[in-house]
């Protein structure tokens, strides 16, 4: 057993923390949040210092490191500001589909611009009326000439307004439900019709869009892997993504906790610092304990992913615990601030909103419990 981070990992964590502390301006962040605007300027700086795509190999602009190193960065970013952290964390959303399964040519074309901040990546998977996981998509890819024609509609597409090229998950013809393909729709080719999904309670710097594909043509060379592999690639991607989302939860919880602790040590009521009241002390103790649990589980899941390719049960657990912890801790943090906590200017309420949305991003805890149960119970 070895619970210490390596020196390199500690350096990365420290560098990410210092970058976030130096570059994430609270007023600027509130503007991005209010306007539903992606923090492109900050992303460029982060990319310049190599914080995005740390898990990409050097030759694609990355640092040749693993998921654990990637999530250390994501955690620190979310800790400093939940909104900016989530946005930067999702700036390479879906790129792992190409990183893990793409051809050499695809990797060379798509990954370096993401690591450089020249392109923000995206993956369109959700659809309307999709209540049972992603076993079937109604968006169809039909073979046509030397490529495919896509028809259908995707919703809650991350980075849809910014994305250069975008990966779209489709059902192949009308074949078996497992017959899915992941296709890259390029920014220079046919464009789907974009519409905004409307204001969000959280993750506002990552505006969600819906995309309608009407006979969108994609060349054969934009198929990731082989036909029929879309589903397994996506399952693998979700595994990695859950761990990253878990790290967002840990960072959000830690950030909210940091502010609440500072506030509790300063705020005087009844002639005492409120941190001297047991009701507040109990809360702070619970918060920090929950964060430690969430972090340990998240790091373990990331370690396992890097070492053994990932354990799905651990991933579900890490995302569930971390996202729920983020929300509970942010809730307690707002509470410790009292009325001040509800005012935007005091920089705590966004943790509450962002935590709630990260909580249902991917799957909600409700779904995860049932998925965990499926795994541990098996057929009965």
């Amino acid at each position: 057993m070895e619970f210490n981070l390596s020196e390199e990992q500690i350096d990365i964590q420290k560098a990410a923390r210092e970058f976030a502390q130096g570059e994430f301006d609270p007023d600027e962040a509130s503007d991005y949040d209010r306007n539903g605007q992606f923090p492109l300027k900050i992303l460029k700086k982060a990319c310049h210092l190599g914080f995005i795509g740390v898990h990409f190999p050097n030759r694609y602009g990355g640092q040749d490191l693993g998921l654990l190193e990637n999530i250390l960065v994501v955690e620190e970013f979310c800790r400093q500001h939940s909104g900016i952290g989530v946005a930067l964390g999702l700036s390479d959303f879906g790129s792992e589909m190409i990183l893990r399964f793409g051809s050499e040519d695809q990797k060379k074309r798509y990954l370096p611009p993401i690591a450089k901040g020249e392109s923000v990546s995206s993956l369109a998977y959700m659809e309307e009326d999709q209540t049972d996981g992603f076993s079937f998509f109604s968006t169809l890819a039909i073979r046509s000439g030397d490529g495919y024609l896509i028809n259908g509609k995707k919703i809650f597409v991350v980075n849809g307004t910014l994305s250069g090229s975008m990966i779209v998950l489709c059902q192949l013809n009308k074949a078996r439900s497992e017959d899915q393909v992941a296709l890259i729709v390029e920014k220079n080719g046919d464009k789907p019709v974009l519409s905004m999904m409307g204001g969000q309670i959280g993750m506002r710097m990552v505006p969600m869009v819906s995309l309608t594909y009407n006979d969108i043509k994609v060349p054969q060379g934009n198929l990731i892997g082989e036909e029929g592999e879309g589903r397994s690639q996506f399952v693998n991607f979700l595994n990695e993504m859950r761990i990253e989302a878990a790290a967002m939860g840990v960072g959000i919880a830690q950030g909210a906790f940091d502010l609440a602790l500072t506030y509790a040590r300063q705020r005087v009521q009844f002639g005492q610092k409120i941190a001297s009241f047991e009701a507040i002390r109990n809360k702070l103790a619970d918060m920090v304990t929950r964060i430690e649990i969430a972090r340990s589980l998240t790091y373990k899941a990331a370690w396992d992913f890097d070492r053994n390719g990932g354990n799905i049960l651990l991933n579900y657990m890490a995302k569930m615990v971390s996202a729920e912890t983020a929300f509970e801790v942010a809730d307690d943090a707002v509470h410790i601030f009292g009325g001040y906590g509800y005012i935007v200017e005091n920089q705590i309420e966004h943790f509450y909103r962002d935590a709630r949305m990260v909580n249902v991003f991917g799957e909600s805890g409700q779904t995860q419990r049932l998925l965990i149960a499926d795994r541990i119970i098996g057929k009965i």
Partner: protein
Amino acid sequence: MDFDLTCEQKRIREMCRKFATEVIAPRAEEMERTGEYPYDIITQMASLGIMGIPFPKEYGGGEGDWVSMHLCIEEISRGDVSLGALLDVTTSVAGNEIYSFGTEEQKQKWLIPLAQGKEIGAFGLTEPDAGSDTAALKTTAALEGEEWVINGSKQFITNTGLDNASIIIITAKTRVEQSGRTTISTLIVPKGTPGFTLGERYEKMAFHASATHEVFFDDCRIPKGYLLGDIYEGLAQHLSVLQTGRISVAAISTGLAQACLDEALTYTTKKYQFRQSLLESQTIPFKLADIAMMIELSRTIYLKAAWLKDQGRDYTLEAHFAKLFATETAKKIASDVLNMYGLFGCLEKYPISRYFKVAKLFEIVEGTSEMQRLVIARKLLG
């Protein structure tokens, strides 16, 4: 024992439910988005006699009771909580304080327009350094001849920004005794008095239609006769009407929780229509069962507190139970229902996103959960 509502109570509840469904709910999203106050809705509420329910006819009231008032607050809040909060502050707190402690002249001058809904009242207790610690206030009022001269500030003042807000009832230190003890008194300050200014409107997480401001008093002079009640009992008076306010916040939260359940039932039955029947699963139906149970408990305890008040009995414990339970419950319910919606619940066009963001507020206002527990514990331990 009798758990049935009287005919009049039922009539008021039905009237408010109909009004909330037909008039308020369709406007709620717009109110939250634009932050604009629906003056036309206030006028309609006034013409239904809602603001004056618990006051006598001679003061423009409806001769009703506090049970009716709170049934009304629940139903209105089911449509939109900022309007429920308006009733809380105007009727349960400001109107109630003038009715309970004011002189006949003060009632004629200020209670009647509040009860008739022509004017809106505000209530100022909190200051930057006096939150839960209400006695730590710094605002002062000095008697100079026939006038009080007020200096200081109050914050998080609900409704002060409204065009038809008429008065703010505040606490201030009025004198220092020889022992060093300060006397805290309650004063009625009409909006528009020179030296009274509104600060910037707060940018809040939600609850946008409610115009909340910080207010400043800079040599603000009011006539001596605007002192409300006993000069020595200002804080006690102020806190005693907050006791009624606690029942109101519980009723608001119950209405909010009920709105969440309404949403959950519509959404889940629709979502599962073409899939396995909802009843074949347990996760969501069990949650719905819990939610319905918690709402009924919230409602029962706030109604008991209101009934005790109507009987002229002590309702301290019940008011605190109601405020604590109903607000924590509403927050949990809103969050659970948002979960059922998944990402859709995070889109502001769906009511549940609004319910979620606003639910947290009620755990904090009019005494945080900790203050409720503190009072309950003190009462238990004697």
